[in-house]
């Protein structure tokens, strides 16, 4: 007891003496060691923090900025396509769709899976989404579903918290209010394929479309516009907190066509069920006012994807609905070629309009007999009569004498067998054959080839648009090019004025001779196309018939006297053609009509051309700034 008390007193008097308590000494030393370690480690952390915050601060600040700014590209609206009066032919309609931004969701597959429980996705959708995901960068949104209804949109909005990265966006869908009426001219659009996207990053945006035919294809670059972008502050689950910066893109250019929608409709109505093509042109400046090819197709079917059965039906149809026959259909021009041959003859200096040729009903060259369409012949006739009666022998003889090269040269000047500047894809050039061309294909050019070419048969092939261009050039003496684009964003281009087009290198007197011959065809007694005579007061028209054989008529059949092409099966009947321009004394409009297997140009094509020309003259689209009322047929409008 005493001992203990003494010790207690000792300790109370003396300060801590570690030596007296080994346990406490060890503890203190080791605790001090701990304190040093603690200070050291927190010091290291403070240093590390200094590096992160101050030394590398700029780098992380930049990362922070990109972290919260999400840049999204805005697809520009595709330009409209309108007719010459501004009536919409191709338009954009609102289309609500659901997109997913892969970079804003940590679990893309899971999000899509949850989405599909709200809005079902079929196998085709999934395959497409997977494909787009693979090929696109993470900041480009991928479309999940489009054409959403209000109800579906509400369901997505309601489930938004479980769908990070999913956004609803209003896009546009291409609509063609006129449907089949202008399908060949306007064409259609389709989603871009991988090759398109490789060419233009703009096309990677959802909702972008690429023109696949017609004006939509040829004017695709202009219609597309330029993309805008919007920068948004977003949180980590992709919810937009605020919009920081917006750069509006430029919408696509509005393309104003030369087409008069009302006239187009009338022409289509005139053609009816026939497989035919018709072109109405302003022969002074080459504006295509109507361009009809029947049968047609419904372009809206391409919007959601054409079914295989539908495609087979289209491609196997012998009436070729997908092909625009006015630019891609080639036909022997038949007798409509004769004015071109006549011009070649006149220009050669070997013929004058008054030179006469005797027609006995046939021409024998080198043991081969070439028949005139009239078995009894036309007797001794000059150029005027030759055109009026459409005498074959006259032009056989002319072709034989001047040679093929001269004919081809003149035909090319008229636009036949040449590539025209029309703003349409998939056009065909046709052919004006020459000995050189024939030899290039390792064949011998026979004299007979030149002779049949004189009446537009044999190897000669032209398109209906070339025929209309040829007629226009013949009527005005100007080297007009047919075109469909009249205005860009309502601004009319220089090609709309006649002076824009250079004069043809053909003497006016020869052109006058041809025009008068064509006038006789329609208006004089014994002309081949009396049915083409206009019934409008004070207006006359000039034209030329053509019947193009698609099969050689055997001599035996012809001589049997029972030959009547109307009795042939449809596909062997000759094509019926007619070209014309009006008014005769002051040409304004040119029309070409080709009725496939229509038999005789004078009976089938001429009346149709007359009706089309009548409609054109009554509407007179060239001299009207606004479309004339559909029902009024006021003859007073016509000069």
């Amino acid at each position, binding site marked *: 007891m005493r001992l203990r008390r003494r*010790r207690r007193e000792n300790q109370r008097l003396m300060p801590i003496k570690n030596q007296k308590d080994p*346990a406490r000494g060890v*503890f203190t030393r080791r605790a001090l060691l701990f304190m040093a370690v603690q200070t050291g480690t927190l010091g290291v*952390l403070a240093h*590390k923090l*200094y590096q992160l915050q101050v030394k590398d601060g700029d780098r992380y600040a930049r990362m922070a900025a990109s*972290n919260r700014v999400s840049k999204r590209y805005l697809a520009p609206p595709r330009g409209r396509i309108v007719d010459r009066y501004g009536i919409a032919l191709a338009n954009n309609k609102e289309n609500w769709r659901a997109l997913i931004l892969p970079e804003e969701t940590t679990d893309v597959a899971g999000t899509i899976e949850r989405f599909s429980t709200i809005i079902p996705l079929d196998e085709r959708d999934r395959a497409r989404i997977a494909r787009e995901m693979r090929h696109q960068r993470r900041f480009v949104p991928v479309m999940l579903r489009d054409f959403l209804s209000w109800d579906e949109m509400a369901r997505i909005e309601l489930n938004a918290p479980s769908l990070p990265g999913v956004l609803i966006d209003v896009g546009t869908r291409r609509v063609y209010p006129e449907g089949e009426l202008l399908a060949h001219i306007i064409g259609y659009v389709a989603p871009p394929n991988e090759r398109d996207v490789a060419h233009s990053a703009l096309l990677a945006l959802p909702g972008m479309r690429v023109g696949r035919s017609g004006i939509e294809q040829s004017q695709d670059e202009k219609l597309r516009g330029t993309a805008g972008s919007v920068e948004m502050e977003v949180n980590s*689950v992709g919810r937009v907190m605020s919009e920081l910066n917006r750069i509006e893109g430029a919408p696509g250019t509005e393309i104003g066509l030369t087409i008069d929608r009302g006239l187009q409709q009338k022409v289509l109505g005139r053609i009816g069920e026939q497989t035919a093509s018709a072109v109405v042109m302003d022969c002074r400046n080459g504006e295509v006012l109507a361009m009809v090819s029947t049968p047609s197709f419904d372009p809206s079917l391409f919007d959601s994807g054409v079914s295989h059965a539908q495609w087979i039906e289209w491609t196997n149809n012998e009436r070729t609905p997908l092909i625009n026959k006015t630019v891609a259909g080639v036909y022997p021009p038949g007798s409509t070629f004769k004015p071109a041959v006549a011009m070649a003859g006149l220009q050669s200096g070997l013929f004058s309009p008054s030179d006469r040729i005797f027609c006995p009903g046939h021409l024998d060259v080198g043991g081969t007999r070439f028949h005139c369409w009239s078995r009894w012949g036309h007797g001794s006739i000059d150029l005027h009569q030759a055109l009026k009666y459409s005498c074959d022998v006259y032009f056989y003889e002319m072709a034989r004498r001047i040679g093929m090269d001269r004919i081809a040269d003149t035909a090319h000047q008229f636009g036949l067998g040449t590539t025209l500047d029309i703003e349409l894809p998939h056009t065909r050039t046709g052919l004006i054959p020459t000995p050189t061309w024939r030899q290039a294909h390792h064949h011998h050019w026979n004299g007979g080839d030149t002779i049949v070419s004189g009446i537009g048969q044999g190897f000669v092939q032209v398109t209906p648009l070339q025929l209309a261009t040829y007629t226009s050039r013949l009527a005005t003496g100007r080297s007009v090019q047919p075109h469909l684009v009249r205005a860009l964003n309502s601004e009319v281009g220089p090609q709309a004025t006649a002076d824009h087009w250079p004069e043809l290198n053909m003497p006016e007197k020869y052109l006058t001779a041809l025009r008068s011959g064509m006038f006789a065809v329609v208006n004089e007694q014994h002309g081949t196309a009396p049915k083409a005579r206009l019934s409008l007061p004070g207006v006359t028209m000039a034209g030329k018939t053509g019947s193009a054989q698609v099969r050689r008529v055997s001599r035996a059949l012809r001589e049997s006297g029972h030959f009547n092409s109307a009795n042939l099966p449809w596909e062997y009947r000759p094509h019926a053609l007619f070209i014309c321009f009006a008014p005769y004394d002051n040409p304004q409009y040119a029309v070409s009509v080709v009725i496939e297997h229509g038999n005789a140009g004078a009976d089938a094509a001429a009346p149709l051309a007359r009706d089309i020309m009548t409609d054109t003259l009554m509407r007179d689209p060239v001299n009207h700034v606004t479309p004339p009322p559909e029902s009024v047929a006021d003859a007073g409008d016509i000069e």
Partner: protein
Amino acid sequence: MKFHKRLLRAEPSFRLLSKLWRISWLYVLLICTLAGVGYITLYSAGGGTPYPFAAPQAARFAVGLVLMITVAMLPPKILVRISWPLYLLSITLLVAVLHMGHVGKGAERWLMIGGLQVQPSEYAKVALVLALASWFYRISYARMGNPLWLLPPAFMVLLPVVLVLKEPNLGTATIIGGIGAAMFFAAGMRLWLIVLLLLPVPYMAKFAYAHLHDYQRARITTFLNPESDPLGAGYNIIQSKIALGSGGMWGQGYLHGSQGQLNFLPEKQTDFIFTMIAEEWGYVGAITVIGLLLVLILGGMLMAIRSRNRFGRLVALGISMNFFLYCLVNLSMVMGAIPVGGVPLPLVSYGGSAMLNVMLGFGLLLSTWVHRDSRFGESEDEETT
């Protein structure tokens, strides 16, 4: 001084007053300051409103403050007595949480007791500190040389470590192991024994890695190369680093940290709260908070050294070590220096269990300080020697 001595010898009611007087109110002020930092940061994390984080946290802190002062009044005699029941209770809770705990983030971590979320692993730390201090106090320094006397406390450490690993909460298990090791060392474990035990550690680490859960291994992998999976497992580390870095020297301003305010930061109100501080207050603010933490740690250690009884010394050291390891793991984690684990920043992070556990610890620390001159047990020590 005379007045003070008289108080000590006074009646029990006066003794309580004198004990209150002996509490280090400076230390309490520092604790309140740290909690205040937590409050204003949680206010910002809530988007500039007291709800849902700041206000409940303040209420919890008030409860914790009362708890702390109460515990500070308890003399070592009582603490030694309750240490064993507390330890057994905490082990029971750890076993219970494995069987009927609530799952959070791939780990069973909490129990619902009377409408309160309780994380047994948090209480296990405090209970272990008390139990170990109690054991080492009883066996005295002399027996530290005999490894046989160290086997029972080693088992006492390993039991909660294994149970917490099973939850599985790697971060907390590491802290528990760390506390145990620190207390063994401070209690006077012989150096030769320490060296002997450290030799097989590399082999054990290899073995441990093979038995980690997939998500724990993912943490280690992404820690080594966080950019390998920027939107997946590496997301937290990258976003956290971006937030820290974008703070710069002076910060983006209170309530204006873009990463935190725009929800890029994962768990910004709990584990990653430090990144919010660093983003809004910059390096200056962050280093101030680290300084405050260090002062609290070193203050606790000094209290341990100052104590005149072995039990108090060990308790104070264990608690300070716990607080230090908390801070170390959390700060290293948000800076991307160690794999991510669910360890909050004490007093600042949002959460009830961690807050009450920390305040309980500070209560024990202050109790040591209040009873620093009590020579509880020292005489018995010498009698046995």
